[in-house]
């Protein structure tokens, strides 16, 4: 088994646990961590699968570099909103359904 394939499979597991965390966790910081785990999983699949024969693939690596930057942008925005919510409601969770309109 090449490192590419191995890390692609790891990436699949990370992606799935990230999705589960993103949906199920209630604390917003945990949701944000889960989103990052999900993203890292997708990146590993992208590079890992492309390199499963063992050759480095600069195209997928450049794509993931783009992806990492997009991820940090989204993380910062999510944290800013979560902290504003904390300032407003005193909690880093979503208000109960139907109360935020």
């Amino acid at each position, binding site marked *: 088994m090449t*490192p590419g394939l191995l890390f692609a499979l790891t990436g699949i597991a990370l992606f799935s646990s990230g999705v589960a965390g993103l949906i199920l966790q209630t604390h917003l910081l945990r949701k944000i961590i889960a989103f990052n785990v999900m993203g890292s999983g997708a990146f590993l699949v992208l590079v890992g699968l492309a390199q499963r024969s063992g050759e480095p693939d600069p195209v997928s690596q450049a794509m993931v570099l783009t992806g990492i930057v997009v*991820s940090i942008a989204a993380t910062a925005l999510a*944290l800013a909103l979560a902290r504003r919510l*904390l300032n407003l409601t005193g909690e880093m969770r979503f208000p109960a359904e139907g109360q935020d309109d």
Partner: protein
Amino acid sequence: MIALAFDLLLAASLLWAAFRALTTLDLFRAVVMFIVFGLLMALAWARLDAPDLALAEAAIGAGLAGALLFDSVGHLRARGRSRP
């Protein structure tokens, strides 16, 4: 052979760190585990012949994201102290 064993260990550590980051009850520790996860990701990129990604992951994925999360945990705790 040794390389494969190392990769397997690395993959297992990645999964473990991610699991801990997602489930640890204490938020501070969860963020620490997330940074460990980021550093392990950097190692994985190095193993995948992607030094650019290893650098970027260490600086941005673990470093900057970690700093942002730490700062937010600090903010959360300060907030908790200011109102009992």
